[in-house]
């Protein structure tokens, strides 16, 4: 009797802590989270972390190789580009551009995706069909091509590229929200809430939505990595951020002509993209396992 009492009086672990415990078990995702935090902090404090200003041109140092190579100097650890700008500093400031745009893109497509998905799930008939057909049309084009079409209409710039990526990612969030909401709608607690007199808006946002968040959070993490990839690809094709913005893809495209002479100009910005994308993919995997043990792979 005493034993039973002591068990029931124990505070249950909060759900967030439980998720955190499950997440921590996955070593890869844990490392990825640390990497993301480090990159995020250095992007935030780029002013004090970066050794030079991103646009500062050193006229005595064109195409200087990285520090460990012959002719390299510790002044420019990852070397300089064709007009004497420090590559490391540009990559650090570039993290600011990529991470903030990526975050904005994911946040907006998540928001609009949830909105449209919930509307679709709560309205059988015409509205549902129209929204879902629209999403199908958007998915009919390969994502990068769709983004290129949108940029071709709006004109090349970082903001337009970001808008294009939001539109490209939208269908995934809409479909996920709709599917999750529809499966929740038939459950007893929703019906009980309806019987208790909850209005549609309350049902949508307070009753149903919180229970649909797990797949959406995972998709948002994975969407972050594909947003960064797409933005860099658009920048590389000259349709995203315009030079001299230190955006990673844009840096690569202007380095293209020096590929024969200066490997470091091409190597490091791409490595930065790879590391960030990889970290977000790893974290997405870990989050999926932690949030939904049913989906656990392997």
């Amino acid at each position, binding site marked *: 009797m005493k034993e039973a009492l002591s068990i029931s009086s124990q505070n249950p672990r909060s759900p967030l802590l439980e998720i955190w415990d499950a997440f921590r078990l996955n070593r890869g995702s844990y490392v990825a989270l640390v990497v993301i935090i480090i990159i995020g902090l250095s992007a935030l404090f780029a002013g004090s972390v970066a050794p030079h200003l991103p646009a500062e041109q050193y006229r005595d140092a064109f195409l200087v190789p990285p520090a460990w190579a012959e002719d390299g100097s510790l002044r420019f650890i990852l070397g300089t580009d064709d007009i004497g700008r420090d590559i490391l500093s540009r990559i650090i400031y570039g993290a600011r551009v990529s991470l903030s745009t990526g975050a904005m893109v994911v946040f907006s497509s998540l928001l609009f995706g949830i909105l449209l998905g919930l509307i679709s799930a709560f309205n059988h008939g015409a509205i549902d069909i129209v929204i879902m057909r629209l999403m199908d049309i958007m998915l009919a084009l*390969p994502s990068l091509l769709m983004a290129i079409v949108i940029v071709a209409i709006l004109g090349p710039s970082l903001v337009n590229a970001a808008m294009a990526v939001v539109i490209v990612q939208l269908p995934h969030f809409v479909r996920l929200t709709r599917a999750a909401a529809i499966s929740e709608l038939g459950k007893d607690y929703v019906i009980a809430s309806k019987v208790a007199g909850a209005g549609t808006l309350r049902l949508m946002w307070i009753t149903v939505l919180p229970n649909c968040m797990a797949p959406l959070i995972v998709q948002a993490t994975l969407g972050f990595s594909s947003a960064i990839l797409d933005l*860099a690809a658009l920048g590389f094709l000259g349709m995203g951020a315009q030079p001299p913005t230190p955006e990673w893809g844009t840096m690569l495209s202007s380095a293209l002509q020096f590929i024969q002479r200066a490997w470091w100009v091409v190597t490091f910005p791409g490595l930065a993209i790879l590391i960030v994308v990889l970290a977000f993919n790893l974290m997405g995997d870990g989050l999926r396992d932690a949030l939904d043990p049913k989906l656990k792979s*392997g």
Partner: protein
Amino acid sequence: MFRFLLTRISLIVPTFIGVTLLSFSLIRLVPGDPIELLAGERGIDPVRHAALRAQLGLDKPLLEQYWLYIQNVIQGDLGHSIVTKVSVVDEFFTLFPATIELSIFAIFLALIIGLPVGILAAVKRGSVFDYSSMGISLVGYSMPIFWWALLLMLFFSVYLGWTPVSGRISVLFYVEPVTGFLLIDSLLSDETGAFQSALSHLILPAIALGTIPLAVIARMTRSSMLEVLAEDYIRTARAKGLAPWRVIIIHALRNALIPVITVIGLQVGVLFAGAILTETIFAWPGIGKWLIESVQRRDYPVLQGGVLLIATVVMLINLLVDLMYGLINPRIRR
């Protein structure tokens, strides 16, 4: 089966209409006057402006314009390129084989490496091979392929000098286009060395383009193989005393391949998106490079036509994959 076929086909009709709407409105959504956009920076005199407006049908009401556009599309007329004056459909079909050749080769590479790696990783679950191959495939999956293409070029073409930097075949050769696929055409022609030249041009772009599908196929094969290997019928097969490889290849793989095939079908869109980047970097004369150039030159008819044609191709391939899936897996034919 017939019902299944009909529902699948009827589902793509509204999507196709939607894509024609997108392509139709593309030039009309660009801020500013379409004719002045087409004329470029030199400007255009008012008489010619009005004539062009009438010629392109832009003076008619929007609904009628769309009706005319649909009629043209159904007749296979997607207008002419502003730069080259060649019909968009003709240009598309001259360049399309190059993209198909590259994509097929890329998928082929992805399959011959990805399938065995995935199977082996599943069979040797938890081994060093499993962890390292799945780690590498996660890196491959996260790869910005435009950078990967540059690295490959930097190492194999610039540093080692093994492969040419760009193009489809050395300028020394002239190969009569028969099928449009240079690998086949060069074998058919009597030029010696043409095939080697075509192959050495193809290999790097194909590796770059095949990397993401390779990673996806390896991961998918592993997880679907793991699932199948845990089934009762596999234990029965083992208990019967069949050779281990026979259980894996004959019994398990056949069922494990079903989700893998769907994933391969889904890679078609990824391949087209990748082709845009790969072709631009390797100067591969396919439709990806063609589309990017059309954006840079503001050649809107090409962009409009190209978008419509690519979307149609992607939809048809997805339909084909769906139907194939129905053939392989009778459980989903309802």
